[in-house]
Every structure is written in C-alpha cells, then in structure tokens.
C-alpha cells in the first residue's frame, strides 16, 4: 500500500499517512506472529509428558546373552547383557571401515567409579533409517540387530554395518545409580 501511495506522489517526501500505513501494517504482522506462537507451541510436549522423561531399570536380572526392552519416552530401549564373544567381536572391527565410526567403548557410559561395563549395552531400539524397531538376539549378518523394514543390519555394538540406515543405534543419556540400577534420561 505504501508503494501505491509513493507511486502517486512521485518524488515527494513520505507523508504522515505513509507512516501510519507502515506502522499499522507492522503492528498487525507483529501481533499476528506473536498470537500464532501459542497455537504452535501447544503441540510441543506438555508438562506431564516431559515429567515422564526418565526411567529407572534393574539390570541385575538380565541373563548373559539376552536382552530386555524397556520403554523410555514411549520408545523402546534395548538393554543387552552381552557375552564375551559378542564384546570381542565388537572390538575386533576396524573402526575406520565403519559408516558411522565409533569404538565399542565410546558407546558405553562409565559407572560412578569411572569403570566401563562392556557386558551391559544400552541403546535406543529405533532404526536410524525410518524408525522401526530392529529384531535382536543376534539377528542379521553381523550377529547384532536387523531391521525388518528395509534391511539395515547392526553389529554386536549396535553399529550400522549394512543397509540404508545412516547412523548407529543411538545411545540414550543414562547413568548407573548403583551396580544394579540404571536411570535412562
């Protein structure tokens, strides 16, 4: 609208009416954007959803060579009590050959004394391709996990080895509260 007015008055100075048009337009646009924000933000997680963001798990009952799946933020988290062979297999890989290079130790979180516990592997059970839950217990060509949706194969450390997924299975934030209990989130 200011353009149209400017066109009519040619080289003249901007008028008070131009100023009012611009100020009113700016107020409407600015106010509109501010008013829009609550209607967008309401779709973000609500306070009660955020309050569910940690899960505590007793890991002492997981037999060697098997895994449990717990729910954290509505997603599955795999906790696997690995065998010696699985740990050795994970450490035998040439890291530089991996799509998402990470050593097995980098995928572990130390306990309060600073010691790693390589027999306990914790990671989100969500394929980094399109979010399916991979099959476990040594599934797939690399003895770790295998996603049935589009054929991504993960090794015994949960690292991507084959298929369309771009990244390793993510490790959630977690900590050892005691020898037997971890808190995820």
């Amino acid at each position, binding site marked *: 609208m200011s353009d149209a007015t400017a066109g*009519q008055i040619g080289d003249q100075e901007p008028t008070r009416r131009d100023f009012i048009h611009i100020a009113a337009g700016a107020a409407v646009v600015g106010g509109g954007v501010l008013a829009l*924000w*609550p*209607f967008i*933000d*309401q*779709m*973000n997680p*609500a*306070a*009660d*959803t955020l309050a569910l963001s940690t899960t505590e798990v007793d890991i002492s009952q997981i037999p060697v060579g098997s895994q449990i799946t717990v729910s954290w933020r509505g997603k599955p988290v795999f906790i696997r009590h690995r065998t010696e062979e699985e740990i050795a297999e994970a450490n035998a890989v040439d890291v530089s050959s991996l799509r998402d290079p990470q050593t097995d130790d980098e995928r572990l979180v130390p306990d309060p004394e600073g010691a790693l516990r390589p027999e306990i592997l914790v990671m989100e059970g969500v394929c980094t391709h399109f979010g399916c839950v991979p099959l476990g217990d040594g599934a797939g060509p690399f003895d770790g996990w295998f996603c049935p949706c589009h054929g991504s194969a993960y090794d015994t450390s949960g690292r991507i080895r084959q298929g369309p997924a771009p990244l390793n299975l993510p490790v959630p934030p977690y900590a050892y509260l005691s020898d037997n209990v971890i808190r995820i989130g």
Partner: protein
Amino acid sequence: MAGPSTYEPKSGIERWMDSRLPLIRLGYDSMVDYPTPRNLNYWWTFGGILTLCLVIQIVTGVVLGMHYVAHVDMAFDSVQRIRRDVNYGWLIQYIHANGASMFFLAVYLHIFRGLYYGSYKPPREVIWILGVVILLLMMATAFMGYVLPWGQMSFWGAVVITNFFTAIPLVGDAITTLLWGGFSVGNPTLNRFYSLHYLLPFVIFGVVALHIWALHVPGNNNPAGLSVKSRADTVPFHPYYTVKDGFAIILFLILFSVFVFYLPDALGHADNYIPADPLKTPEHIVPEWYFLPFYAILRSIPNKLMGVLAMFGSIGVLVALPWLDTSKVRSMRYRPTARWCFIIFVIACLALGYAGAHNPEGINLWMGRAATLYYFVYFLLLLPILGLVEKPKPRPASIADSVKSHGEPAATPAE
C-alpha cells in the same frame, strides 16, 4: 447493490486466474469496492466482530480437540490437563470458554441492531431468517460445548436440557432415550455431543456464508432505514468500513482480553470445577448467562409442555417477524411509539436475564412473568398493530440527505 463488477485484473497472473476461478474478483467486489451506505454507525460493526468470533472459536476449538478426551472417566481430567500441563493450554482454553460469551454478547447486540433499524424487513427477510438459523446453531453448539468439561454444571445442564424433549407428548421419552444413547446422560451422550460440537461450527460457517451472500444482494440496511438510491449514498467498503470495523474489533478484543486475562472464570460457575456426579444435583443450577432469558421464560410458565413451547417459541417468533411487523418504515428513528416499545423490549430482555439468574420466587417470578408476557406482546400485538396506527416522522429524501440533516459535514473522500 450487487451491481456489475468493477474489478479489473492488473497482472497477467490475475487475468489468467480471473478467467478460471474469479476468487480475487469475489474478494474485491465484496470487501474492497463493495458500495456501502455512508451512514453506518458502530452498531453495524458487529457483523465483522462476529465473523472474527467464529474464526477464534474454530481455531481454538480445533486446538483443544487435539488434547481433549471425550470419555466420562477422562474428560474432566483432560480439561484440567489442558489448563495445567499443555503449553499455553490455559490461554487457549480460556479464550475458547470466554469466546463463547463474547460471541453471544456480540450476536445479541447484532440482533438488537437488526430489530431497532428494521433489518428484517423486505428485501432482507432471508438474511434475517438465516440469522435466526445461525442463532439456533450457536445455541446448540454452545450447550454441547459446555457439557464437554464434564463438571457438575456440565452434567446437570445436559440432563435438564435433554429432558426438555420429554415434554413432547407420546414420543418424548423415546426421543430423549435416542438423544442420550441410554437411559440417562452417560458416555454415549458425551461422545455424540463432542462429535456434534466439532461439526456444528462448520455448519454455522456455511450458513454465515449464505447470510453474507444474501446480504450482498440488497446491500446493507442503515440507520436511516432508507434504500440506496445513488452512488452519493454510498462509500466503498475499503477503506471506510475496513477501518471502522477494524477499530471496533480492537475495542472488542480489549474487552475480550480483560475477561481472558483478568476474569477468566467470572462468567462460569464454581460448581463446574467439581467432577460430574450423576447421583447429586448442585443446589443452585443455572445455565450460562447467555441462556438466562430463555431459562426465565421456561420457568415463568407453570406447565411443563407450555414452558418448553414458550421457550422455543421465543425464537420461533423471530422467524415470523418480517411478516408480523406491518410498518413500511424500517428504522425506529422515525417511529416515535414503536421506538419506546422497543426500548421497553430491551429492558424486558434484561429483566428476563435477571429473573433467570435468581430463584423463581416472589418478585423475581412475577418480574419474569411480566417480561415474558411483554416479550410476546411486543412481537404478536404491538408490532402488527403499530404498523397500522402509528404516524411515522418525516424521513429524509436519501441517505446522503440524512447525513447532512444529522448536523454532520458530509464526508468527502480524501483523494
């Protein structure tokens, strides 16, 4: 007033679009160059305000629908969760709840405007009847929305209102059972009310479109009640009425904000913060303020069926109004007797609201009865008779003349 279109597409894209879907032409003809009587006062801004109200209710309502759970065990808690846990849920829920009150405030002023200035008279009968349809849809929508939070007032409001239908002879009980989906108000009732509460606003939107379409055929009525005779009687809708409506909308939103931010529960009832209990009725059960006049009419008549008929009749009589008012003069500005009858009618409506809010005993009962009587006398006796016997004051020759005779300098367009 729906004359030939003056829209001229300026760019190639506009020409291409105009010969395929003339949407810009429709907007231009109805909101930019639309010739509008030059003498509209602020009572004419409620159409724009009401459109905004409908949009606000739909937008906030769709958002609330993302969080609300329509189940008797969870509905109450889900509304509390919206208020406490959902980001800005308190704001959106309060806008929606108070928005209903603001919507009715505006629609009642809009209706009084139409009654005073004779906007229901030929050639605007269809606009008026569509307006009555919108009012009925609004009432149904507001009632069902009030049930959804499933507090004590929600529940017992639903019980009482659905029981209106038991007054119908022979089939009343069967109809009420059908409405409930059971033998009392319960989960099936809540589910269907939620479904219909979501549906009806879009039906209202459609009828509003017809209302505006019907308005744009004869054009706006105006305070003088005169038909537009020449171009001198009108100004283009934009910028004259876009700015006037915009200013009124700002004032209205200030009032709206006072309620949302400072008095969010002032128009509600504390009992609705108690979860619904089908075994105990609250001691004082009253509807929301915008239903009080109709509630008073219902309670004025000591007979179940007649009370319900009078209440629905108070709206039904509006449908017949274009044919009940026999006067050829639209605006009551020029009808000295009818003008006073109208002023008493407004007072009677306020008295009905007061009577509806108080127990029907003693003076309140008789005041409600007197106001109910006047309500129907106004439509069924005064307006038909006055049109035949009243001598109207002389009217100006044209809208342009009425502006000059009103003691104001004739507005000249800036450029």
